[in-house]
């Protein structure tokens, strides 16, 4: 099949080509700039591309970390997982705890994290920094100028989040927890 002489003529195919070679999410405005079209046109083309990929093949369009990227479909996970090595490392309970606290309370100092957890957390902070899930975002104006931590784009990528506002709301989570406690029956203080 001959290639189109003007790659921008077919926006959907052009988008697919760009996203195929991209190794990180590409923002809507970047795609629009590269193709010389409006962001609305890119959005429409992305919808068409998503439907097309959804219908056929092993690749899907994913919106995450502030952009769009191609990934394999979940049904091929086992096959690809065995093909790739080494296997991905899972996050331990303590790392998840620290990550959640940083995600919800950011920017946050190590002291703040330890205050919530009640245990020393320097190892977990270091491990999350090494995995590039959190990063230093500044220093708190307080004695000692402690480092403030926040989450990274890599965090959004690893948790399939488009942006931080997609985090499960903590209030509803707390309410849900309260409901569970209520349904568990009378407590010691009832």
């Amino acid at each position, binding site marked *: 099949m001959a290639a189109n002489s003007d790659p921008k003529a077919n926006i959907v195919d052009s988008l697919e080509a760009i996203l195929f070679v991209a190794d990180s999410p590409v923002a809507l405005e970047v795609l629009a700039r590269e193709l010389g079209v409006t962001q609305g046109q890119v959005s429409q083309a992305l919808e068409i591309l998503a439907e097309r990929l959804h219908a056929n093949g092993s690749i899907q369009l994913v919106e995450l970390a502030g952009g769009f990227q191609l990934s394999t479909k979940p049904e091929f996970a086992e096959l690809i997982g065995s093909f790739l090595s080494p296997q991905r490392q899972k996050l331990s309970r303590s790392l998840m705890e620290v990550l959640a606290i940083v995600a919800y309370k950011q920017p946050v100092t190590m002291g703040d994290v330890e205050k919530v957890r009640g245990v020393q957390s320097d190892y977990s902070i270091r491990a999350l920094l090494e995995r590039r899930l959190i990063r230093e975002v500044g220093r708190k104006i307080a004695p000692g100028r402690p480092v403030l931590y926040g989450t990274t784009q890599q965090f959004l990528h690893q948790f399939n989040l488009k942006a931080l506002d997609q985090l499960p709301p903590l209030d509803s989570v707390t309410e849900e*927890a309260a409901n569970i406690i209520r349904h568990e029956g009378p407590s010691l203080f009832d």
Partner: protein
Amino acid sequence: MAPRRDPNEKALATLSSVGVIAPPPIQVESPKFSGSLAALFVCVRDRKVDLLDIPLFPICSAYFLYLAESEQISLDEAAAALTALAYLLERKAWALLPVAEPEPEFDDPMELMEPYVHEFALAIEQLRTLHEERTHQFFRPQDAGPDPYELPYTLEEIEPADLARALARLLSRATPEKPEVLGGPRRSLTEQMKLVLAALTTDWASLDSLVKEPFTRQEAVWWFLALLELIRLGQVNVQVSEEDVQFRRKV
């Protein structure tokens, strides 16, 4: 307001709020408080009700009625009631007196004890689920860039053996090195690279001609390492000329 026995008052009757003996079950009914004399005593003592809002006269009347009407009065109970009433009257009297300064406010109730990581428990579970789902998707891996320990490009016809020969030749001309003075300053590779760059021109030159005699074996190694690093960074060109390799500053 009259003394009457209420089954619900049994607990208060058996457990004194005032002291060892509980006061008689004198019931207090007012717009701001409803309960027994013992309960009123406890609430006033614990600052749960404002005594200024509760008239004491009906309570005193009820106490006198209790004394007058009860056939078998327990002196201990009567004394307990009197003690409670005296306490209430004294407190109210003090409350009615003008005060120079307002009463200090009591501390706020204690906040929940930390840690409170449990508040994040369900959020953590939801994040874990998201993470688990994410592990079923695979993306094109990010390019880590050139390994700093690998040459960024091939040197085409230049073989490592050519470079090794150039070093061997230089080392053969080196004089025995001076014994190292302990604690002396150590030369950095960056400094040596500056020195080598200063010695290089855009004309091709062999390693032998670059390093001026006399030099030690250690200095020869430093020259060679600096040249390798400059080649890796793309600042120095290298070529094979007859049986030797030649270097020059990148044009």
